[in-house]
């Protein structure tokens, strides 16, 4: 797994929703090395730490990576100021991506800003993919058209019912899993959502991979600040979200630490 660190030109900037931006960046080496589910650590001018942002799209032919992120604080606000033609200071691709089975029916579950890393799975699996995408309300809905363009069976949920299914992603997920056709589930989103998804997958005995978030320093495994409690062979230990993750098998993850 190789990664790069350089300033790369932004070839396209789009506003997807209020305070949610899509940046496409020309970075041929990084694009070539990238896998679905990996992330990049993006520098924000004037801040000591980079900001981890998932890779939303990989185009090896064009040599581009795409990032979709929401302005959550001062660092992401600074990054969002960049325009087409400006450069983005990227360290990546980093971490372990999703392990996607070939030719099998799968479900991806994305919650809010956890939706972007799921788009790459949909791009790879197309009609074999059911995408369950949860948002707070209609004005936060992003990327659903792109999942549909991949021929994925796309179900949008909003908490207030302003568009799509009213309620949480777990309702359609339970229905889909009950059909008994799903070979794997992939999830990224708020912790409460991930926990609920894992529980449903356990009940239906379907393997699940989750992408986790933690505050990071280096992003490359050097500083061990980004820990998440995991268990292997009955022993609990802290894994590094940046290097051992961000994608983990659901059964490895412990949330109470």
């Amino acid at each position, binding site marked *: 797994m*190789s*990664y*790069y*660190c350089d300033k790369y030109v932004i070839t396209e900037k789009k506003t997807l929703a209020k305070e949610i931006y899509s940046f496409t960046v020309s970075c041929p080496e990084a694009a070539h090395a990238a896998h679905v589910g990996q992330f990049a650590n993006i*520098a924000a001018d004037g*801040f*000591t*730490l*980079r900001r981890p942002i998932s890779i939303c799209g990989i185009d090896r032919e064009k040599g581009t990576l795409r990032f979709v992120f929401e302005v959550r604080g001062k*660092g992401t606000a600074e990054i969002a100021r960049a325009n087409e033609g400006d450069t983005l200071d990227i*360290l990546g691709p980093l971490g372990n991506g999703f392990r996607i089975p070939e030719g099998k029916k799968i479900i991806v579950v994305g919650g809010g800003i956890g939706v972007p890393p799921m788009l790459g799975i949909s791009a790879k699996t197309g009609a074999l993919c059911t995408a369950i995408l949860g948002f707070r309300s209609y004005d936060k809905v992003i990327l659903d058209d792109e999942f549909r363009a991949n021929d994925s069976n796309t179900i949008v949920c909003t908490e207030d019912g302003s568009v799509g299914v009213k309620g949480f992603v777990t309702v359609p997920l339970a229905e889909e899993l009950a059909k008994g056709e799903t070979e794997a589930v992939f999830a990224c989103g708020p912790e409460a959502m991930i926990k609920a998804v894992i529980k449903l997958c356990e009940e239906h005995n379907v393997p699940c991979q989750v992408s986790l978030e*933690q*505050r*990071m*320093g*280096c*992003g*490359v*495994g*050097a*500083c*061990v*600040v*980004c*820990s*998440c409690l995991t268990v292997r062979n009955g022993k*609990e*230990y*802290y894994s590094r979200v940046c*290097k051992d993750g961000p994608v983990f098998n659901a059964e490895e993850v412990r949330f109470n*630490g």
Partner: protein
Amino acid sequence: MADLSVRIAGVEFPNPVIAASGTYGNGECYTELYPLSRLGGVSCKGMTIEPKMGNVPPRIAETPSGILNSVGLQNIGVHGFVEYYLPTLKEEGNVIIANVAGAVLDDYIAAAEVLDASDVDMIELNISCPNVKAGGATWGVTKEGAAAVTHAVRKATKKPLIVKLTPNVTDITEIARAVEAEGADSISLINTLLGMRIDINSRRPILHNNVGGLSGPAVFPVAVRMVWQCYKAVHIPIIGMGGISTWEDAVEMILAGASAVQIGTAIFKDPYSPLKVIDGLSEYMDKNGIRSVSELVGQVKPW
């Protein structure tokens, strides 16, 4: 071309730029970008005699021009280090420094004995980590504590011994003198300054450990001041660190009295920063007709 090599406690460094403990893993994480041999040395992740799990996350918070961390010395233990990391480090790197921490004297002694029998080039004694309730700060904040641990480890190893000082003290020079008197070959400073951040909405500290160590550019002037004070107080060489992010910072630290520098937090934003410091220092020396780093050490002209 200027000669960047420096000699500390009889150990030859090809250049005076060292990766700081806890920020560079065990040298394995940045080899995708450049070989470890570009650095003068690497101070490895702080290690203890037994493996340690570390503190509950979150372990990092950003601050104005810096960060707080509360890793709590997560490490695989001295034996794991010697077995898994040291062979590669010796092959790929220059000076390999083992950073050692402990909760009780016997921990320090046991770790030092294991390292004494290994291939590490130097031992850096961390008596200053503010994260571990049982150890760390308690040793380094009094001259008696600092002297006791230095004395014990000095007896346990013949390896060149660096003692790393904590800035969380009233008078750092008395600690520096105490460890010099007990046989330290060098001192390194500063470790992190104890700090805290609070989320005003949840009213929770951002770090699960509540408090953590401040590093990065925010601490740089404090570090320069302490290195300068220690330079005047002891005769052993000083390794200066704390907030260095540019070659100008490194020159400033050397002028204050450092024979070599360590860089930590700056690497998170710019992994190439140690190399930029080496190149910038070299150019500065050429431009000013300085042939050896030693001509600069402590050469500040105080008012």
